[in-house]
C-alpha cells in the first residue's frame, strides 16, 4: 500500500441548475484574456448533445484516453498511438479538435459597441454588430460555442451524434429527441485531475505533472513547449492551447485558493450547491488495477482502490508516509469517500476512458415518462405513488449508464434508488409521521445513512460540502516559512543559491535526522 493524497470531488447532477455561474467564476479569474478566451476550464453542457468541443466524448474521432493492449507486461497504452507515432507526428497531430470545433467559424465574439456612441447623425438606429475575436471580421454569424446546445438548443439534430445513445436503437433515440419523450440534464465539467492522467502520459516535455501533495494535475508554464499532445490524449478535452503564449493551459483547481483551504472558484460560486470537495486516500499501487479492469467492473474496482480513511492500517501507513493528520482527518470528515465508496451514489464520468478520474457524479433523477391516454391527452406513466419510481424516469437509465458507468446499468440504478429511498424515508417522517425503514432496507441503507445523506445532499452546509485542509508548506524541502515570509512575493529578487531554509530545531523521523 502506498497512499496517494488526492483532492477529490463530487458533482451532484440532480442539483445542477445548468446556470454556468461556475463557468463565469473561472472565466473571470483565469481565462479572460487574449489567447485564452475560448478556453473553458469549467463548462456545463446540456445533454443530450455533443458539447464542447464538438463530440469530445467520441473517441472513435479523437482517440483520447487509454486502451487495453492485451499484453500482460504493459496492459495499457494511450489510444492516440504508441510512442513511435508521437515521434513521427511531432509537428502534425491530426487527432485533435480544430478551433471551429470549439467556437465555430467566428471564434469567440464581441460587438461593435462603439457604434452606440456615434457622434454622427444617422438615418436609422445604430446597433452593436457581432464581430469575431479571432479574425476581427465584422457582421459575422456565430455558429458554435461553449454552450451552443444550452437547454437542448438544436439538440433534435446534434443529439443524434451523442455517443451516450450508442447502446440504444435508432427508434429509441428518435423518440427521445421529440417533444413528448424529451429529457434534459446538465453535465458540468472540469479537469478530472485523474489518478491515471492521459495528458501527463502524453506530454513530450514533462510539463504536465501531478502534484504529490494534492494530486492536482498541472501544466508547468515554464516547461510547456506547446506540443498539444495533452489535448489529443485527454479524452475530456480539458487542456487548451493558448494561441498567444503558445503554451497549454488547463484547470489548476485554483491551487492558490486550495492551498489556503478555500474551494476552487467554480466550487465556491455554484448556486446549485452541487459541488463537494475533500481529500481521498488512493492506493497508488492499485491504480493500474482500476485502469485496466473489465468495463463492467471499472466502477467497482475504482472504489476498491480508495482507502478507508478510518482504517487503522491506512492511518498507520499515512503516518509513515508523513501525511499530515489534518489531511487524514479531512479525508474522514469529507463527503467524497462516503458518496463514492460507502453509499455508492456517485460515479466517474466515462470510466471506460481509463484515466481513473478524481471527480464523481451523482446521477440525476428526472420527471416520469409521459404517455398519451386513449383521448390523446398527456398523462404520466406512473399512476400510483406520490414519489416517482425508478423505472419510470424520463432520463433513460441506459443513457446515464453509458455516461457514468461504462454501460453498467446496475451501478446507476443503485445510485438512483438510494436517492429515492432517502426521499421516501424523509417523506414518511415528515408527511406520514411514521418512519419507513423498509424502504431504506430495500435500498441497502441504514437510518443513519439516510439521515447523513439527507444532511449532505439537502442541508449541505458550506463546511460540509468543502473539507479542505491547507497545504503544509512548511514541509517544502528547500525553503523555510520562517525565511520565506519576508521573501513572499519577492522570489525573483532572491538569489537562487541563497540558503533559504533555516532550522529552528531538528527535524527527526524515528532516529533519522532529515
Amino acid at each position, binding site marked *: 500500500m502506498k497512499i496517494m493524497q488526492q483532492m477529490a470531488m463530487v458533482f451532484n447532477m440532480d442539483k445542477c441548475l445548468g446556470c454556468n455561474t461556475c463557468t463565469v467564476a473561472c472565466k473571470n479569474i483565469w481565462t479572460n484574456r487574449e489567447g485564452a478566451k475560448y478556453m473553458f476550464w469549467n463548462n456545463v453542457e446540456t445533454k443530450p448533445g455533443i458539447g464542447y468541443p464538438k463530440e469530445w466524448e467520441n473517441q472513435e474521432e479523437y482517440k483520447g484516453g487509454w486502451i487495453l493492449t492485451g499484453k500482460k507486461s*504493459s496492459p495499457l497504452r494511450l489510444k492516440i498511438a504508441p510512442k513511435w507515432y508521437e515521434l513521427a507526428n511531432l509537428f502534425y497531430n491530426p487527432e485533435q479538435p480544430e478551433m471551429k470545433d470549439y467556437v465555430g467559424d467566428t471564434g469567440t465574439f*464581441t460587438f461593435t459597441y462603439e457604434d452606440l456612441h456615434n457622434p454622427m447623425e444617422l438615418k436609422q*438606429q445604430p446597433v452593436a454588430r457581432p464581430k469575431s475575436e479571432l479574425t476581427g471580421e465584422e457582421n459575422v454569424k456565430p455558429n458554435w460555442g461553449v454552450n451552443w446546445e444550452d*437547454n437542448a438548443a438544436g439538440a433534435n439534430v446534434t443529439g443524434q451524434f451523442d455517443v451516450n445513445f450508442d447502446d440504444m436503437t435508432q427508434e429509441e433515440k428518435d423518440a427521445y429527441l421529440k417533444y413528448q419523450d424529451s429529457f434534459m440534464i446538465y453535465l458540468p465539467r472540469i479537469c478530472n485531475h485523474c489518478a491515471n492522467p492521459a495528458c501527463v502520459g502524453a506530454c513530450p516535455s514533462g510539463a504536465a505533472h501531478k502534484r504529490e501533495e494534492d494530486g492536482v494535475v498541472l501544466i508547468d508554464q515554464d516547461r510547456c513547449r506547446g506540443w498539444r499532445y495533452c489535448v489529443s490524449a485527454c479524452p475530456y478535452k480539458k487542456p487548451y492551447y493558448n494561441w498567444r503564449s503558445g503554451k497549454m493551459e488547463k484547470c489548476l483547481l485554483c491551487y492558490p485558493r486550495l492551498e489556503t483551504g478555500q474551494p476552487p472558484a467554480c466550487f465556491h460560486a455554484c448556486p446549485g450547491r452541487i459541488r463537494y470537495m475533500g481529500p481521498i486516500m488512493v492506493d497508488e*499501487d492499485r491504480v493500474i488495477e482500476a485502469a485496466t479492469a473489465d468495463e463492467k467492473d471499472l466502477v467497482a474496482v475504482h472504489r476498491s482502490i480508495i482507502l478507508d480513511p478510518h482504517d487503522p492500517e491506512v492511518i498507520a501507513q499515512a503516518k509513515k508516509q508523513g501525511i499530515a493528520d489534518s489531511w487524514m482527518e479531512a479525508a474522514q470528515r469529507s463527503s467524497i469517500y462516503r458518496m463514492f465508496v460507502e453509499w455508492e451514489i456517485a460515479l466517474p464520468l466515462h470510466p471506460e476512458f481509463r484515466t481513473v478520474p478524481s471527480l464523481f457524479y451523482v446521477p440525476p433523477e428526472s420527471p416520469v415518462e409521459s404517455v398519451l391516454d386513449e383521448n390523446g391527452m398527456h398523462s404520466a406513466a406512473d399512476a400510483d405513488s406520490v414519489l416517482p419510481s425508478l423505472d419510470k424516469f424520463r432520463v433513460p437509465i441506459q443513457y446515464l449508464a453509458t455516461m457514468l458507468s461504462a454501460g453498467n446499468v446496475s451501478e446507476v440504478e443503485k445510485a438512483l434508488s438510494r436517492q429515492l429511498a432517502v426521499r421516501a424515508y424523509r417523506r414518511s417522517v415528515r408527511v*406520514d409521521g411514521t418512519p419507513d425503514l423498509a424502504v431504506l432496507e430495500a435500498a441497502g441503507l441504514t437510518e443513519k445513512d439516510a439521515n447523513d445523506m439527507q444532511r449532505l445532499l439537502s442541508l449541505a452546509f458550506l463546511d460540509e460540502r468543502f473539507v479542505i485542509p491547507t497545504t503544509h508548506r512548511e514541509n517544502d524541502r528547500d525553503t523555510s516559512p520562517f525565511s520565506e515570509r519576508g521573501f513572499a512575493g519577492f522570489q525573483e529578487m532572491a538569489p537562487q543559491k541563497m540558503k533559504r531554509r533555516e532550522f529552528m530545531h531538528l527535524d527527526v523521523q524515528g532516529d533519522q535526522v532529515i
Partner: protein
Amino acid sequence: MVDVGRFEKKGDIMDDDKKGNGRFTWFKKAKESRTWEKFYRDRWAHDYSVRTSHSVNCSGSCSWEVFVKDGIICWELQKTDWPQINDETPNYEPRGCQRGISASWYPYSPVRPKFPYIRRKLWNAYNSQRKKGIGPVEAWASVVENPTLAKAYKNARGKAGWRRGTWEESAEIIAASQIYTIKKYGADHIQAFSPIPAMSMVSFSSGQRYNQLMGGSMLSFYEWYHDLPHIMPWIWGDQTDVAESADWYQGTYWIVMGSNLPMTRTPDAHFASEHKYNGGKITNLSPDYSDVTKFSDLWVQIKEGADNAFLSACIHVILNEYHHERKAEYFHSYVKRYTNMPFLVMLDEEDGYYTNGRFLRASDFAQFEGEEYDEWKPVQVDNDSGDMKIPTGTLGHRWETENTGRWNLTHEDALTGEEYDPLLSLLDKKGSKEVMVGFPDFTHTYDKLGETKNTGNKAINSIRGVPAREVKTKNGKVLFTTVFDLMMGQYGVGRGLSGDYPEDYDDADAPFTPAWQEQETGVSRDLAIRVAREWADNAEATKGKSLFITGSGILHWYHGGTLTYRAEAVMGIICGCQGNNGGGFAHYVGTEKIRNYAAVGFLAGATDWYRPSRHTNSTSWQYFHTDQWRYDGMPLTPLWSPDAKTLPKHGNHAADINHLAVRNGWLPFHPEFDKKNPIDVYQDAIDAGCKDDGEIAEWVAKQFKDGKMDFAITDPDAKANHPKVLTIWRGNLFGTSTRGQEYGQKYLLGTHDNVLGKERSKDMINEVKWHEEVDVGKLDMVVSLNLRMDSSANYADVVLPAAHWYEKHDLTCSDLHSFFHPFNPAHDPAWEAKSDWEAFKFLGKVFSEMAKDYFSRPVKEVVLTPIYTDCPDEMAQPLGEIKDWRSGECEVIPGKTFPHVKVVERDYTKLYEQYTTIGPLGCQPEGYGAKGINFDLTETYEAMKKNRQIGEKHGRPDISNASQVAEAILRMSPESDGEVSHAIFTDLEKRVGLPLAEMVEGERDIAHSYKDLSSQPRRSITSPHWSAIEDPDRTYGPWTMNVEKLKPWHTLTGRQAIYFDHQGFRDLGEALPTYKPAVDTVAIGDLPMHELENGNSKLLRFLTPHGKWQIHSNFRDTWQMTNLFRGGPLCWLNDDDAKEIGVVDNDWVEIFTNNGIQVARAVVSHTVKAEACIVYHQNERHVNVPFSPLAKKYGATDLRGGGNNAPTRVMMNPNCMIGGYAQFTYFINYLGPSPSERDMGVIVRKMPLVEGKVIYEEKNLHKLKGV
C-alpha cells in the same frame, strides 16, 4: 512497463519509485522548485475586496465580494457568510448567479457612457439661442415651440448624433425644460420612471425625491411590469407578501408553474432539489421542458395559457372530495375562520333564476341600527342559533373612530364579545330552500388562437340549484346564501341539488370537471384528479404544507394575475395552506419586496415635505400617451357575465372603462386637467372667491359637474395634455417594458417606427376624444441616467453617466430572503459618472438656483389623487355599487365619488435644501408609516440628528450623501429597528385588541446600522407592515401573523376574500373564481393574416418569459452572457414548426404582428411545444439587430427589427381598474391594469436574406429588399 508515448527529459519529473516493479513509469509528481506556480498565484493575488451587490430587477439581492487588483475591478465571487436561519434549513450561500458574476464586465466596457451626452441637434438649437444671451428657460421655449426645430431633434432620437457635454450643461438644459413645463403646462406633465426600489433603495429614492419635490409624478412599475399579482390586494388586501425561499424548504409538495426557478430564481433554485431530498415532491405545469421541469417529479405538459382550466378541475375535485363527500376537519375549520366563505351573499332575481349579489351587511338590518360604518360590516349567521351576527375584524372595525379593539379574527360577536360558530353552508339546514342560480361559463368566449368567430363570443349561464334562505331586511325580504354554497355551485359540485350540474368527473360539457379541462389543456383528466388528491392529501397530513411557486409565466396572460393566480390561491386556501410555513401561494417576480417599505416611500415620495405625492399608473399612461388605445380592437363583450348591467353601460372598450375609473377616483391619470395647468386651476379658484382648500375642492368639483373643466384623459392627444418631460434611471423603459414599443417610438418620442397596422378603435370609444391626426413626439425632454447605452439611453435627449453598482453606497433587500444588504464602492465612479444620489443632488442644486429667476415666491397648485387604499378612503363607495356622477347617479364629492382635490404649496428655490434634509411632516400623530399602520416619527427624527452616521443640517437630519440616506432608512424602519417596530405594534394593539408587541419584545435592542451590514448581512425583524412572524429561527412565511395572532387581513371582511362582491366583478362574472380562455388576438385584429399566404410562415403563440442569460436587458450585452449562448435576439421554435416554415437552427426569422416586427435568430429544439414560440425577454434593440425586409416591404420608417415588445401591445383588463371600495382601492403599484403581452399571437417567418446575409449597416441599406 506501460507503453506510453512520452519523452523523458533528464532532471525533469522524476519517478520516485526506484524498484521498477510494475509501477507506472510515467506516473510523475513534481518535486522541484515550484517557482513556475507563481504564474497563476500572481493572478489570484489582489489588492482589495469589498462586499457589495447588483441593482437589477431579479429578486437576488445577493452578497458579492468584488476584487480590485492594480486599482481595477477584476472579478467578483459571492460572499458566503449569510447568517444561518436554523440548523435544519439550508443556508443562502452562495447567493449569486451567472449574470451577476459577469457584472465586472461593465465598469470599463465599451457599452458604458463615460461622459454626459446631449443630442447634438437639440443642443445646437438650444445653444444657438443661449448664445444670443437669452435665459435657459426662454431658450428652451424657443426650441420646443418652434415646430421645425422640435420635429427635427425628436425625429433624430435613437439615431446616434451625440455630443459630449458637461454635467453643468446637461443640468442646465434639463432644469430649463422642467421649469418651462411647470410654468407653461404644470408639474403634472413631468414624469419620473425608475422601477423596483428594493434593488437599490437610495438610488430609487434619489430621482423620485427630486421629481416629487418639483411636483412631478412617479410612474408605477409593479403592475406595469406585469409583476403585480392582482389577487394579492384582492384576496389578502396587501400589495404582495410571499415566502422567502428558505420557507419553501418547509413544504412537502410543490406545484411550480410559470416560474422557471433555475433560470430566473437561480440563487434560490437549490431549494428545489434539496426539498426533494427532504421528502418533498415537485409537480410542474409547463408547456416546454423548462429548466424547472428538470427538477420536477411530474411534468404536466400543458397547453400554454390553459393552466387555470387544469387548476379549476383540481378545485372541483378537492371541493367534492374534501369539502363535501368527506369534510376534512382541518380544511373545514380553516375556511370558517380565515376566509369569507361563511359570509352571506344576497341573491338578485333575474328572469327565472337568480344571480349572486352583494354581501349582506349590518346596514341591511334594523337590529344593527346605529352601528358605526354599518355598510362596512358584513354579517354571518350563528350556526347554533341561526341569528345574524356581526363578526369582529371587518373593515368597519378597522377604521372605527374610537378604538374598541375589535379588529381581530376571534370568532366573536362584535357586539357582545361572545364566541360563536359561523354557519358555512345552508345545505340541508332548517329554513333553507333550493333556488336556481346562474353561473357564467366563459369556456367558449374565445377559441384556439385564430379560430374564434367574429371578435369573441358572449358567455352563457349554467343554471344550478343552490341552498338559500330568506331574511327580512330594512328593504324587505331578500334571499341569501353563503359564499361556500356559491363556490360549490360555481365549481359544479352537485351535492344532490338540481340544475346543470355535471354528472361526474367524466362529464366534459360542464365546467369545471376533469374531463372538461381536457379540451383546454390537452392534459388527461386522470392527471388533474391525481394532482388534486396529492395536493390535498399532503395539505391535510401536514396542516397546510402544500405550496404553489409561481410567477410571470402565468402573470403576463390577460387573465393571469387575476384568474389563474386566483385559482392557485383558492386551491391553497381551501386546503388551509395560507399562513403556514412551507405552504400557500408564493409568487415571484423581480426584486419586488421593499422590506423597509415605509421609509423608502417616505423619502422617495418626499412626503416629509409635501403631501400628497403625485403617482401615475404606467399602464394607462402608456396606453394613452403612446396612442395604443387607438389600435386596441378588442371589444369587451367576451368578458361580461350574461347578466352584466352596470359596467358595460359605461363602455365596451378598455379606454372608456379607464375613463370611468379616472372620473370615479379609482385610478390616477397624468396630466390631470384637460388643457389646464394645476397652478392656473388654483389661481382660478382663488379668483372665483375660494377662501380655503375645502372651498377650492368644492369649486373644482362644481366645475367638473358643470362641464367647465375636464380630465386630460378625455383628450389625451391634445398638445397641452401630452406628457412633456420624462426622466429614466435604474431602468430601461424603452428597451424593456414598453409593450407596444413601436407605438412609443412613434407617438411618445416622435421618431421612426414599424407599426404595420391601422387604427382600429375609432368607432368603439365614446369617452375619449378622437383626433384624425395626432401630433407625434409628445415628450419634449427625455433624460436617461445610465451605465449602458441601452435603448433608453439611445432614445433619450440627455444621457448622464451613472455610477456602476460597484461604485456606490446603497441598500438592497428581496422577498426571496429576509436580510438587508449594502452596496459599497470598490472604487469611486469611473470617468465622469456620478451615483444616482449625487446626480440628482447636482441637478437639484442647478434647478434651485435657476428657480430663483423664475419663481420669485412659493407656488400653489391643485393636485388630484385617486381614492387610496389602507385608509378610510376605502369606505368611499359603499356596497360596491358603481355610480357615475357624470350621469347624475350621484353628487360630485371629492374623495368619495371623484378624485381627492388637494392644494400643495411648493418653494422651488428650496428644492436642493429639501432634497438633502428630512422634512418635518413625519413628526405628527400618525405622521409616518405604511399600509394604514402609522405612528409619530418625532423620537426617531430627533435621534437621527444625533446619529453619527447621519447628523444634523439646518436643524434636520442630514441626508446629503448616500450612506446617510441608507442609515436613515434603517433607523426609520421597523424591519431594521426593533424599537420602531415595538412602538408601531403597541399602537396597532389598540385597534386589534390582542397582544402583538410581544412578538418583538426580545428584539427591541436590535438596530441594524449601515456599517453592520457591510460586515455581514442582517436579518429583518418582525414588522407591523408585513404579515410574517419572523422568530429568529423561523423562515419567513406570509400571513403567519394573521393566522397565529389573529390580526385581520386588510380586506372588507378581514378574512381572505374568495368572493368579490363589487358590482364590477359581478358584471365580469368574476365575483367567484372562474376560468376565461386566453384572448384570441387574431379575432381582434392584431395579426396581418394575409402574410400567412406567402408560405414559410406560421401563426404561433408568443411566449416571452424571463431568460437565462439576462436579467431583462441587463447582462444581455456582456461578453460572458453573449458567448455563453448565442449572442443576440433569439426565438425558440419547436422542431416540427421550424421544419414547416423551412427554418433550421440558427436561421434568421422575423416575428411580427400589426404592432411591429422583431428580428431574431431561431433556436430550434424539440423541448419547445409546437404552436408556441419562446422569446426570452428582453431582447434589446442595441445588440445584433439587423434590418428587416418586412419593414421595408411595409414602408416602415424604422427598418430595424424591434425588441420583443415590438409585436406586443398593452391590453388592459377592466377588472384591474375597479377602485374606491375596500381592498379594491388604488395605491401606486398596488392596483391597476397590466399590459398582458403574453396573450399575443405572432407570425413567424424565415427572413429573406441578401446574398445569404443580413444587413446591419446603413451604408448597405440600399441592398435591402422589401419582401
